[in-house]
């Protein structure tokens, strides 16, 4: 029956009748990293009224002729166990880091490595946003990449992008990478 179910799902997908290609993106990271701010800035929404996420947010962004469905799931420790449930059929992982929160670099690194070990994310490209570059105490992206051992990734595409979700700086560059990468990968 497993095959039948797969068939059903694919049918359902086709039933939507959209010609647009949909991409499922999961946006993760520790609490206070700026995931929701980034999401809102992607969707060109107001970023001033954001509160800690207890559940999850979804935004659909049209870009490069694709529909990006971005899932932003709360990063508080008690919510992290739920991340796993949202990884299925994910086309891309965006991982957000608070570049000024040096004390938790180790913690965020552990979470990321746990994610990349997930079966559902096998081979899924990772975009790391080194967020909060607008803060004076922010570490540069290269330093963070080193701390995360990103260069050891062999089984997937990865990219680190310095950005400030508040000002929007660097966000579009990241999105461009996503679109290029996915287009290359899927076609």
């Amino acid at each position, binding site marked *: 029956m497993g095959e039948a179910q797969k068939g*059903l799902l694919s049918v359902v997908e*086709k039933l939507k009748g959209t010609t647009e290609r949909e991409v499922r993106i999961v946006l993760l990271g520790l609490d206070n990293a700026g995931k929701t701010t980034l999401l809102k800035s992607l969707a060109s929404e107001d970023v001033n009224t954001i509160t800690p996420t207890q559940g999850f947010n979804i935004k659909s962004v049209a870009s490069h002729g694709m529909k990006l469905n971005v899932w932003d799931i709360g990063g508080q420790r008690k919510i992290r166990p739920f991340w796993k449930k949202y990884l299925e059929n994910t086309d891309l992982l965006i991982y957000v880091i608070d570049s000024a929160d040096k004390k938790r670099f180790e913690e965020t690194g552990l979470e990321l490595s746990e994610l990349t070990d997930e079966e559902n994310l096998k081979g899924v490209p990772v975009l790391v946003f080194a967020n909060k570059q607008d803060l004076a105490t922010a570490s540069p992206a290269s330093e963070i990449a080193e701390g995360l051992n990103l260069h050891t990734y062999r089984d997937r595409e990865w990219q680190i992008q310095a950005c400030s979700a508040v000002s929007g700086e660097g966000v579009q560059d990241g999105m461009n990478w996503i679109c290029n990468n996915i287009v290359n990968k899927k076609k």
Partner: protein
Amino acid sequence: MAEDDCEWVVESIVGYLGSPEWIIPVTDFMENKCTVFDDEDENKLSYTEIHHQYKKLVEKLLENYMQEVGINDQQFLDACTSPFAKSRTLQSVFQPVLATDDFQLFRSLMVQKNIELQLQALRVIKERNGELPECLTDGVDVMTELEQQELKILQEVLKKSKEEYDEQMSRRLLLEEELGSTSSCCPDKPMAEGIESTNAICASSQQSNTAKAKAEESGENSSISNGHHTPLLNGNTATEYNLVNVNPVRKEERKTAVPAGGQENGAAKSQAASKFNPDFGSSSVESRVLPAVRAPVKCGETSVSASLHTKEHGSSSQTAVESWLEEAHREAGFSKPFTELTASQQEQLQQRAVYLRQQRDKLHALKKEQQKTKQTASSDEAPSSPTPAPATTPEAVGQSQRNGTCPPPHPLPPAQNSTNPSKQKEISAEERKKLQKRKHLADKLKEEVIKK
């Protein structure tokens, strides 16, 4: 695969999606699970689990159907991808199926269902009650508006009662001067008490009334004597006012729990204190202590004088006194077995007091209208009560001296037990009746307002 074959399959599928076999379980599921779905921007984690369950349900249903009808996956797939299936009209039929794969669609369906159910519930309520209860008619905005209104009324009431207290204060000071000589010494305190207790003990039909009345009076005394001082001493914010007023009442009751026998000395002292306070009353502490001390003392004279004020003020300041009347009455009713008040009971009492305070405030706002009319009535009373009152004082004191014999556990400061066996002046009886009437009215009102 042939075109018409496809069409047949599609029609069959559409038919199935309109049949009870499909609709009932799917609708059931939605109605059961939709309550957590609100239209907040953020999704709850529980939505995901529900969506997952929904997926399973739909898949199971579709599989069963396909087995029954004999369509294989390929046919189903072809049928669904055929141009016929993609027509606008069929899209809506397929929505519940699409929702398995599209969380946002699923969410919007659930939110919609939730709203539908809410509207249904509102309709049912409307049908049953004729109209919707106020709390359901409008949104949050109106609620806050109401609260603001309430607050305004409350502030007005407080302001008014403060003014009244100020007035009372000045009057009281005046009276105090007049009575100064008599009230400074009081060997008859226990006596008055004695009367009280006799009354309390004997089981005449009037008894309960008397007791209640006493309670009222005590409440009045304490509240009013407080009222005199607090406005003067404190800045008189609403909270202060409440705090100061309520505490003494409680203290009073607690103190009364102490056996009255050995209290004479203390009583005399406190008497003195109470005497001084009004004169020098400049510290809030004193003013707070005052009523508490006075009550247990049960000095005939003080209380009488207090009650005199009470009467006077009672008429002039209906609003304030009435509320306190109720409160005192309630509290007294609650704590009848004073002598055996345990700590927990006292705690209860405190809670009760807080509760009562809240109720009183509500009552104030709601009674505003009625009070206007009442006040006009009371203005008639006003002239009559102060005049006879002074005359009563010596009488009452003498009475208590003569009769008072038994050492009494009864707590409440006596003052004018007009209706009780000891024949007090007629006027006080009249006043008492009026008082009771008023109180009765207030009680009724309260019942109507609070207990629906």
